[in-house]
């Protein structure tokens, strides 16, 4: 393992931590650097497991995982995440797009259900 590669990885982790702190302020505000770093590395390992090995591809997956509920792997309504990540039919770019599309739909459905509930309560 070269010193150069290790330094680049350290810089990457540092920038990724900064990104997470600025993008997910609420979720990260009570997390110390060590815990955040280790969670980030775990998420990067997940990305690597599915073949996302460049910095930006890895961060796309990390960013996406942070948007999901912590127990998403146990929830049937999020089965599509695994389906897409393990798909042999799509390349990485298509997978990220498919994850984003499906997530946008889930968010829209949840928002729709919430507003329906609110409408019912108002009546």
């Amino acid at each position, binding site marked *: 393992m070269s010193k150069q590669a290790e330094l680049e990885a350290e810089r990457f982790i540092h920038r990724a931590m900064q990104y997470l702190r600025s993008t997910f302020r609420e979720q990260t505000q009570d997390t110390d650097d060590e815990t955040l*770093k280790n969670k980030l590395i775990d998420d990067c390992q997940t990305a690597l497991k599915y073949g996302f090995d460049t910095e930006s591809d890895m961060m796309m997956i990390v960013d996406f995982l942070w948007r999901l509920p912590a127990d998403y792997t146990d929830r049937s309504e999020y089965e599509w995440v695994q389906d897409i990540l393990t798909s042999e039919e799509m390349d990485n770019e298509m997978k990220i797009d498919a994850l984003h599309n499906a997530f*946008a739909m889930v968010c829209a459905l949840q928002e*729709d259900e919430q507003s329906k509930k609110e409408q019912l309560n108002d009546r």
Partner: protein
Amino acid sequence: MTDNRSCKATLYLESPGFLIPARLKNAVMKREADVGAVTGHAFIGLTDQNGKETVYGFHAATALPENEHLSFKEKLPLLISGQYQGFIADDSKEPYDDKMVYRITPDQYDKIKSYVEKEKAHPPKYNIFSKNCVVFAYKALHQAGLKLPPQPMFHNPISAVLGIRLYEKAHKAKQNLKKSAAEILSRFSSTRKISRDILQGLKNKPTKQAFGIKTVAAAVAGNTLSALRKHLSR
């Protein structure tokens, strides 16, 4: 070297029903009230050097004639489950609203053809999210390295089923994701790779506080200030 683009690859798209105004629904062609007409459909055509076109599309087995009796409500869970068999059909009679034609070389033609024939012989299971008609068509054309149109937000047929009612809400969520994706692409390398071992090694290392030029500059400034204070206090 001559650029022999004597073959063609065509991406055909049938619009989801909800994208077509009701008054125009049957104006151009008759649209059946089947799943495909509601969700939209994508398929491809391959034209050889003699001008003969073969058209292929990926479907769920729900589209087979023996499953005609199933209602849309019965079909939907099957399409989502990922456990339902898919098949490649001759879609030369399928209606379409849009098409994109690529002039390709015989070598590119062979690459697409070989992929499609392989899929036809061993079709994967259908999944409306990850193994649908659009994914098949795009993956086939990807074999020839063609630059495909960006996938619109609703590239999964199911989104069309859910209808225009959710369009704005989903669009808003997708815009947020797009913004983050653009930021990631501007801040992180798309070529530099990070190895599993190095990452694992970093997990055991204490977090460094200073990596960037700003932090180094701040540290130098801090040291200068403390040296100055020390000097003045003498």
